[in-house]
C-alpha cells in the first residue's frame, strides 16, 4: 500500500468519496436483490404463487436491478474522474519539475526514460486510482454484511464463511507475494529476451556484414524456447496458489449448499433463507477475489510511483536571482570549481580567467578536459561548487547566481556541438525564442549561415517539417539551421561549441566570415577541436583535466612549444593556419 499515492486522492476528494459511497450502496443493493430473489422463488415454488401475486415484489426487484445498473455506472464515472484529475496534475507537476531541474538533470538521465515516466508511468497509476483504491475501502464491507446475515440464519454457513474469508485473504496475500516473485522473474526474463531480440535487430546490419544474420534464427528459437520452459516452471507454482484460492471459494459454496440442503431435509431452516444464503455466498467471495486480482495493479503502481516521486523529490537547483543586466563589460571566473554529483574528480578545478567586452576567447583541450563545464556554468545550467563567476555590468559587479537567469540568457546566443532541432518547421526552428522575426529576417539569417539555398530546394522551403521522416537533413545542414538561429540574435555574448564541425570547407569559410562580422564588438567564446578556426582569437585557454594549463595568443603558445603546440601537431593542422 502506497501512502504517497493514497495522499494524492485528496486532489479529487469529492469524486473519491462519492465512489466509495456508491460502492457501499451497491453492496446494500446486492444483498437486497438476493433477498428479494429468494423471496420470489420461495413463493412461486412452495406457495405456487402466480405472476400476478408476485407483482409488487417483482417490481421492486426490477427497480433494484435498474438502480444497480445506474449506481455501477455512476461509480465507474466518478472513479475515472478521480484517476483523470490526479493523472493530469501529476503529469503537469512532473513536466514542470523536469524543466526546472534543467539540462544538468536531463543530461544525466535517459531522455526516453523520462518521457516514459511522464506518460506511461503516470498512466500506470490509472488502475490504482480507478480500481484498487476504491476497492480497498469497499471490498471488506459487503463480505462483513453478508457474514452478519449468515450469522442470523445459519451457524454453519457463518462458520464456513468466517473461516474461509480470512483464509482467502491470506491466500490472496500469498498469491500476491508469489505472483510478485513470479512477475519479477518473468518480467526480468521477458525483458532480457526482448533485449536480446532488440540487440539482434539493431545489429542486423553488422550481422549481415559478417554473414552471420541467418545463424540468428536458431539462436532466437533457442532463447525463446528456453524462456518458455523456465517460465512454465515458475508458472506451475504460481498457478497453484491461484488454484487454492479458486478451490477455497468454490468448495465453500459447495459445502454450504450441501449443508443447508441437509438441514432443509430436517426442516431446520426455511427454504427462502437457505436460498438467500446460496445466492449470497458467491457474493461474499467476489469482492475479496477482485481485490486479489487488483493487488498487482497496486504493486505496479507502487513501482511507477517510486520513479515519479524520485523525480519530483529531486531538489531544484538554486533559484534564480532578480538582478537584471544592461551593459556587460567583463566576465570573470574566480577560482571556479565544479564537481558533478557522480564524478569522483572535479570537472573543473580552480579555474580563473577574465573575458573583456569585445574579446574573442578560444577554449581548447581533449574530451573531458572541462570545456563544456565552463559553457554549462555560463549558461546557468549548473552552478560552481566553489569560487565565483562575476559579471561586470557598467560599474556594478554581480555574481552570476544573483542575476535573473532569463534576462541573463537573453544576453547570449549559443550554438552547441549537438544542438537539437525541434519537431517544427525549419522557420520555427530558426526563430526559437524570437517568435516575432519576419520571414525576411529568417531568410537573411539562413543566408548568413549558408542555409538559405538548400532550404529553398526543399519542396516546402522554410515550412518543411523537421522530423526524422521529413527532410533528410545531413549533419552539416542541421548545423547550419542552428547557426541561423544564432544569426537571428544580436547579443553581447556568443558561445560556440564546435559550431562548424560538420560543415565542409567551403561553407565553413563562408560562415566563419559572416560570423566574424556578426559578432564584431561582442564577447565570443569558442570551443573548438579544429584549431584552424581559433588562431585569430585574442586569447586561447588550454584545458587539461579541469585546469587551465596554458593561455595566450596563438603565436605566444606556438613559441612556448607547450601543450597547445603538441595539440596542433597531433591534429596535423599546423599547415592550415587561418584557412
Amino acid at each position, binding site marked *: 500500500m502506497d501512502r504517497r499515492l493514497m495522499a494524492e486522492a485528496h486532489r479529487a476528494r469529492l469524486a473519491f468519496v462519492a465512489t466509495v459511497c456508491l460502492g457501499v450502496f451497491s453492496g446494500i443493493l446486492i444483498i437486497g436483490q438476493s433477498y428479494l430473489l429468494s423471496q420470489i422463488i420461495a413463493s412461486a415454488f412452495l406457495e405456487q404463487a402466480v405472476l400476478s401475486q408476485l407483482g409488487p415484489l417483482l417490481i421492486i426487484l426490477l427497480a433494484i436491478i435498474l438502480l444497480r445498473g445506474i449506481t455501477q455506472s455512476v461509480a465507474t*464515472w466518478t472513479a475515472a474522474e478521480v484517476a*483523470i484529475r490526479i493523472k493530469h496534475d501529476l503529469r503537469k507537476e512532473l513536466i514542470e519539475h523536469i524543466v526546472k531541474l*534543467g539540462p544538468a538533470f536531463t543530461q544525466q538521465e535517459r531522455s526516453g526514460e523520462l518521457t516514459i515516466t511522464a506518460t506511461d508511468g503516470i498512466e500506470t497509476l490509472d488502475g490504482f486510482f480507478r480500481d484498487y483504491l476504491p476497492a480497498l475501502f469497499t471490498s471488506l464491507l459487503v463480505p462483513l454484511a453478508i457474514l452478519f446475515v449468515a450469522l442470523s440464519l445459519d451457524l454453519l454457513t457463518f462458520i464456513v464463511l468466517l473461516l474461509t474469508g480470512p483464509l482467502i485473504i491470506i491466500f490472496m496475500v500469498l498469491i500476491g507475494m508469489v505472483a510478485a516473485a513470479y512477475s519479477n522473474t518473468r518480467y526480468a526474463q521477458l525483458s532480457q529476451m526482448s533485449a536480446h531480440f532488440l540487440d539482434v535487430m539493431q545489429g542486423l*546490419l553488422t550481422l549481415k556484414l559478417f554473414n552471420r544474420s541467418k545463424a540468428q534464427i536458431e539462436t532466437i528459437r533457442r532463447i*525463446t524456447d528456453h524462456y518458455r520452459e523456465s517460465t512454465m516452471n515458475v*508458472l506451475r507454482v504460481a498457478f497453484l496458489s491461484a488454484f487454492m484460492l479458486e478451490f477455497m471459494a*468454490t468448495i465453500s459454496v*459447495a459445502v454450504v449448499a450441501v449443508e443447508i440442503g441437509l438441514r432443509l*431435509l430436517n426442516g431446520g431452516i426455511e427454504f427462502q433463507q437457505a436460498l438467500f444464503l446460496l445466492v449470497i455466498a458467491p457474493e461474499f467471495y467476489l469482492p475479496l477475489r477482485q481485490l486479489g486480482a487488483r493487488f498487482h495493479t497496486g504493486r505496479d503502481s507502487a513501482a511507477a510511483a517510486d520513479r515519479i516521486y524520485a523525480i519530483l523529490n529531486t531538489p531544484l537547483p538554486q533559484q534564480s536571482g532578480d538582478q537584471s543586466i544592461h551593459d556587460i563589460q567583463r566576465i570573470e571566473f574566480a577560482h571556479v570549481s565544479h564537481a558533478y554529483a557522480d564524478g569522483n574528480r572535479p570537472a573543473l578545478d580552480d579555474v580563473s580567467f577574465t573575458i573583456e567586452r569585445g574579446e574573442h576567447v578560444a577554449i581548447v583541450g581533449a574530451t573531458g578536459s572541462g570545456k563544456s563545464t565552463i559553457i554549462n556554468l555560463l549558461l546557468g545550467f549548473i552552478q560552481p561548487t566553489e569560487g565565483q563567476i562575476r559579471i561586470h555590468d557598467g560599474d556594478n559587479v554581480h555574481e552570476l547566481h544573483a542575476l535573473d537567469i532569463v534576462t541573463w540568457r537573453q544576453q547570449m546566443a549559443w550554438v552547441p556541438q549537438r544542438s537539437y532541432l525541434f519537431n517544427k518547421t525549419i522557420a520555427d526552428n530558426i526563430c526559437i525564442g524570437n517568435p516575432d522575426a519576419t520571414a525576411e529576417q529568417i531568410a537573411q539569417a539562413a543566408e548568413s549561415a549558408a542555409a538559405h539555398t538548400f532550404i529553398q530546394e526543399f519542396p516546402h522551403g522554410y515550412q518543411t517539417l523537421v522530423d526524422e521522416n521529413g527532410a533528410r537533413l545531413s549533419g552539416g545542414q542541421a548545423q547550419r539551421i542552428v547557426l541561423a538561429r544564432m544569426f537571428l540574435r544580436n547579443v553581447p555574448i556568443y558561445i560556440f561549441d564546435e559550431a562548424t564541425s560538420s560543415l565542409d570547407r567551403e561553407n565553413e569559410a563562408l560562415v566563419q566570415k559572416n560570423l566574424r562580422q556578426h559578432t564584431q564588438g561582442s564577447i565570443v567564446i569558442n570551443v573548438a577541436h579544429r584549431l584552424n578556426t581559433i588562431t585569430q582569437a585574442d586569447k586561447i585557454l588550454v584545458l587539461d583535466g579541469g585546469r587551465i594549463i596554458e593561455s595566450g595568443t596563438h603565436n605566444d603558445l606556438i613559441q612556448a612549444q607547450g601543450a597547445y603546440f603538441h595539440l596542433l601537431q*597531433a591534429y596535423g593542422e599546423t599547415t592550415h593556419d587561418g584557412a
Partner: protein
Amino acid sequence: MMGHSATWRQLLTLLRPFGRRILLALLLSTLTIGSSVALMMTSAWLISTAALQLGIVSLGVAPTGVRLFGISRAVFRYLERLVSHDVTFRLLARLRVWFYERIEPLSPAQFQGFTSGDLMARVVTDVEELQNLYIRVVAPPIVALVVTLGIGLVFSLLDPLVALVAVAFMVTAGTLLPYLTWWIGSRIGRHRVAVRATLNSQLVDAIQGLPDSLAYGDASNQLSVLEATNTSLSQRERQEARLESLHTGLSVLLLNLAMFSVLVTAIGRIEGVFLATVAMGVVAAFEAITPLALAAQHLDKELTAANRVFELIDNVPIIEEPAAPMTEPIVDYHLSIKNLAFRYDENEPLIYSDFSLDLPHGNRVAVIGESGSGKSSLVNILLRFWDYDTGHIAIGAAGLKALPHEEVRRTFGVMTQRVHLFNTTIRENIRIANKQASDEAIIASAQLAQVHDFIMSLPDGYDTYVGENGVALSGGERQRIALSRILLKDAPIWILDEMTANLDPLTANDVMKAVMQAAEGRTIILMTHHLAFLEKFQFDQIITL
C-alpha cells in the same frame, strides 16, 4: 473492422501449428465455466428438492455432484491456465522466428522511411502484442458460444421458451457489449491515443531540446504548449470515461435483467423445483460473456499491431540472390567501377551520375565530400544492399551482380561511424566476424588493432560484458574492436566510412594510425571529410565527390 479480413486470415495461419493445444485449452476453458454453472444449478436444485423434505434418497447424487463441481472448477481452471500459457509462449517463439526470417532479407534497404523508434516499436512491442492473440482474442468468443449453446440445450430440456430467453440475453450482451467497447475504442480511444502520441513527441522535444530552449528563452512557451496537450488528453479521457461508465452499467444491468427475465418466464411454466436452478444457472453462465468486451478491445489492438508488422515484412527484398551465381572463388581483388549512376528512388536526385574507380588490390583511395554527398551510398551499392541500373562493377573477373551475397560480404570489411556492439562479452563481439576463430586468433586480431592491452586492463579481460549491463566503451575503443572484427574476418577490401567522425581529433588520429598499420597489403577505400588524413597517410588516389 472491415478490411481487416486479410490481416485476420494471415494472423490465424500463425496459430495453425498449435491446433491441438488450442483445442485442449478451449475445452478446459469451457469445462471451467461449465463447472461453475453446474455447481450453482445443482446446488439450487439440491436445496429446492431438500425443501420438499422427501428424505435423503430424493437428493440422489446431487450432494456428491455439488462437491465434485466445487472441486472440478478449480482443477480445470488450473489446467487451462497451464495449457493456454504454453500456447502463448510457443506462439511468441514462432512469431519471433517467423518475423526474423522475413525481415532479415529486407535490412537495411527496406528500413528506409521508417524512423528508428518506429521500427523498434514494430519489432518489439507489436510482435509481443501478437502473442496475446489466442488468450485474449480467439478463445473468449469460442468459449462464450459453446457455453451459450450449452445453456440453451440444458434449459430447453425444461422449457424451450425459458431457454430462448436465456440465450437471447446472452447473445444480446455478448454482441452489444463488445460492439460498444469497440465503438468507444475506435471513436474516442483512437483520439486519446493520438493525443498521447502528441504529448509524447512534444515531451521528447522538450526534454532533448531543453538546453536549446532554455538558452533561447523558449522554455515557458514549450511548457504552455505541453499543458494544453495535457489538458486535451484529460478531456479525451473524460469523454471515454463517460462512455465506459455507460458500458459498465449496461453490463451489470443486462446480467441481472437476464436473471429476472428468465425467472419471470419460468414462473408457472416449469416445475417450481427448477426455478432457482435456471435463475442461478444463467447468472453463472454470464461468466463466459463478460470477457468478450475485453476481447473486442484486444482485437483492435492485435489488428493494429498485425497491420504494422505486416506492413514492414510484406516488402519484397530489393535484391534477390543471383540466379546463376559465380561459384569459383575470387582470386584477384581488383575492384573496378565503371560509369556508375545511382539514385535511391526515381523521384530523388542522382547520387552518382557517372562514377568510375579503378582500384588494383592493395591500393588505397580517399573519397572526400561533405556528409550527404553520397559517400555512404557506395557502401550500400558495393555490399549489394541496393541495386544499381547503370554502370558496371567487378571484383577481379567477376561481375558484382553475379556474386552470391555471402561472397560479396566476405570480401568487404566495413567500418562506419557507429559500431554496434552486441550485449555479450568482448570476445564474442569480436568472434562475430568468424564463428570458428580460436581464442588465439581473436587475441591476435585485437593486438593488431592495438586494443589488446586495454581489454586486458578490464577486470574480466576478454570476458567483460559490453553494452547495457556491462562496461561503457569509448568511441575509440569501439572502433578498435570493429577493427579487430574485420581483421579476424580477413576481408581483402576495407571500406572506412567516416569511421572517425564521432571521435575527438587525438583519438581519431590514433585509430586511423592503427587501422592503416593493420591494413598492410589490403585495399582501402577511405571516406572522410577530414582533410588532415590526406597529408598524414599515403593514398594512391584521392576522389572528391
